């Protein structure tokens, strides 16, 4: 009994243990890693990525995949700047309107994504990949390839105003993560994601509207991507069509490293939070200890595989999908 208990627990806590292990490792190599300033740096880097990763977590829990994040983040970031400037250019002058508008825009992109996937019966990875490209294309079209800047001090307070050493956007992200957790564990929609991911046929046979659940999943993911888009603007003070670059790899890596099963039904928001932190700690740590650039990508890849091996119970799947 003892042995199995620890095995089960090991699986549940593995991602967190990996995270702690990495932090100890980097601190041992360079004590500067373990400083409040560095943690704030990690948190800022992780903030938009976490929003994207949470969005895609819902989809992965359903057993689908969403690859539209780069396009969606890029497009919402650009749109945000435009709406922000068009409505006064400062929060005080009424440009806050841009926030709900962009969240809605994110939801809309997700809706299109979901409809294409469900109604046209196109596999989610194809549908979302295509929508992602459309998003990037639209962003290029709107900006004409230029960079759009925002410098409104009140809006940039997301980055500059610090509470206990961490910028405001970190708290925004924490609140969003709590909302995501609430959706996951306290709403019918969240439960439905797990039902669809754990047994689609059964969910259908239980009278669930599986197609609706799928579409709503993409809508929800779109909203979280839009939040990431806004945070990305807050972080950089500008947006361009490639503002969403790299999010695909980072977010999906994080989700898997955190222990969310790609075949659906297993894992959740907390896994993703830990996964995002792991990936960002690795990224940051490699810089802090002065690992050469050309080794960093390879290292990240290796660590991802190690983390997946450690954190998922692959034994329980009799036939791997």
């Amino acid at each position, binding site marked *: *009994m003892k*042995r*199995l*208990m620890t095995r*089960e627990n090991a699986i549940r806590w593995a991602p967190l243990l990996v995270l702690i292990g990495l932090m100890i490792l980097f601190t041992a190599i360079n004590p500067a890693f373990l400083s409040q300033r560095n943690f704030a740096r990690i948190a800022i880097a992780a903030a938009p990525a976490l929003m994207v990763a949470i969005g895609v977590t819902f989809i992965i829990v359903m057993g689908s995949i969403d690859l539209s994040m780069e396009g969606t983040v890029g497009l919402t970031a650009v749109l945000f700047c435009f709406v922000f400037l068009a409505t006064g250019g400062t929060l005080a002058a009424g440009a806050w309107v841009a926030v709900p508008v962009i969240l809605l825009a994110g939801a809309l992109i997700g809706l299109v994504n979901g409809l294409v996937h469900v109604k046209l019966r196109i596999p989610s990875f194809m549908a979302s990949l295509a929508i992602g490209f459309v998003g990037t294309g639209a962003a290029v079209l709107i900006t004409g390839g230029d960079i759009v800047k925002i410098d409104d001090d009140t809006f940039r307070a997301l980055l500059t105003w610090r509470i206990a050493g961490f910028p405001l956007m970190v708290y925004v992200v924490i609140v969003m993560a709590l909302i995501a957790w609430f959706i996951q*564990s*306290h*709403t*019918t*929609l969240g*439960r*439905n994601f*797990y*039902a669809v991911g*754990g*047994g689609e*046929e*059964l*969910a*259908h*046979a*239980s*009278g*669930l*509207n599986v197609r609706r659940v799928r579409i709503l999943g993409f809508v929800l993911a779109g909203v979280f991507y839009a939040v990431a888009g806004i945070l990305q603007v807050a972080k950089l003070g500008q947006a361009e069509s490639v503002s969403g670059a790299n999010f695909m790899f980072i977010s999906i890596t994080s989700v898997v490293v955190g222990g969310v099963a790609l075949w659906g*039904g*297993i894992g959740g928001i907390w896994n993703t939070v830990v996964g995002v932190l792991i990936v960002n700690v690795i990224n940051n740590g490699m810089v802090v200890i002065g690992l050469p650039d050309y080794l960093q990508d390879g290292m990240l890849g290796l660590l991802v595989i190690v983390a997946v091996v450690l954190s998922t119970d692959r034994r329980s799947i*009799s*036939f791997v999908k």
Partner: protein
Amino acid sequence: MYQLKAVDKKFPGVHALKAVDFEIKRGEIVGLVGENGAGKSTLMKVIYGAYQPDGGTVSIDGKAVRFQNPRQAMEKGIGMVFQEQSLIPNLTVMENIFLGYERQFVRLGVINWKAMSEAAEKQLAKVKLDIDPATITSALSFAQRQLVELAKVLTLEERVDGDLVILLDEPTSVLAEDEVKMLFTIVRDLTKRASFIFVSHRMDEVMELSDRIYVMKDGAVVDVVARGAATVEQIQHKMVGRSVDREYYREQRQKPYDASKVLLEMDRVSLPGRIKDISLTLHAGEVLCLVGTEGAGREAILRTIYGMRTPVSGTLKIKGNEIRAFNPQAAVAAGVGYVPRERKIEGIVAGMNVYENMTLSQMGRYSRAGVLNVAAEKALARDWIGKLSIKAHSEFADCGNLSGGNQQKVVLSKWRSGGSDIMLLDHPTRGLDIGAKEDVYEMIRDMSDDGVGVILVADTLEEAIGLSHNIIVLKDGAIQQRFDCKPGAKPTLYDLLHYMI
């Protein structure tokens, strides 16, 4: 020849096997009986190497062995036919039979399909199954799939020199009577070459087939009975630790139904190739039994009512409203509940816990504006865990880890608690021990008292006769005969069989 000594197995919160001693001799058929969750499947899994015991020894011909995985066990001649079917539905029969052992047909990296097909035919002949080995598995009936599983295990005969031990975990629960008979003939025939371990909840079958019977209770072997050394009642007493009610089907609780209140009406409904011109009515408080052989259309009728199939002609009225859009959501909304036969695919979601599974079809009742009332869900689960004595360490237990019978109980409570007033039960007592069966019969009577209409596809003809107000006998998708089953004036087995075949 094959021996277990003081074998122990623990799961988090469950001591599934307690110092079990078990032995099987060459050419012997050993029965294994016990309540749901007694540890039968776990014992089987230890034997064929899917689980490693936490304590005790396993030996073959006196030599200690330790299997890391089923493949190692197979190499020693131990094969398993699963309780929940394990064939891969989208592969062909022959691919399933030789799954993992294709190498013998590979020449220069290419599979010789013809050779594989011939070899598969040889295996299928052993179980007297006459189908094309290139058939896609999902096109087969349950019974045929069961036989394919057996054929797959029998490939060991060629691969292994030593003795074979073949494990059958509830192989008969989805089979019709004649299919069971055939399976038994095949098994007896094969004892020349193999020993068998046979798990079933049908006592008469176990008594008929086994040379010795192991009785398990709460993870321990409480008795070993030689053939003919005990009656069914005595063994059942050992299993449940009390005597079993003689008035099994609760006939005394069968009351006349409310003929004025029609819940469901089918009028000349047809589905090409499955059912034709089916007309039936279901009243409040009525138990209507559909009887027939596999493929006679019983399941198709249930699935049509539940909206999983759309008929090409005829009408279906639920509570007076004609159904136009056939889908399960509409059916659930109209108050229909469905306990399907294939538990693994359509019964429970493995990975979700007990309360999540129970409220899956009725989340609307446990939520407000989309926000779930988890406390109420948990209370519901605890309530039913108590009512049906579901063996689960708590409402947080993963349903995928429950024993087969306990999963079935979760499915039943899911629909019973959902307040459906038209219940479609397909083999509701499949895989349940006698104690739990009684609970289900009691539950069916309770439902009648509450004015619920039940359409039942029973596990046995006796069950059908005992429980129903009315019986419809089906053959080849058409209604052959209707029987009125008032208590005291019930038709006999023979009456029904006459119209079935």
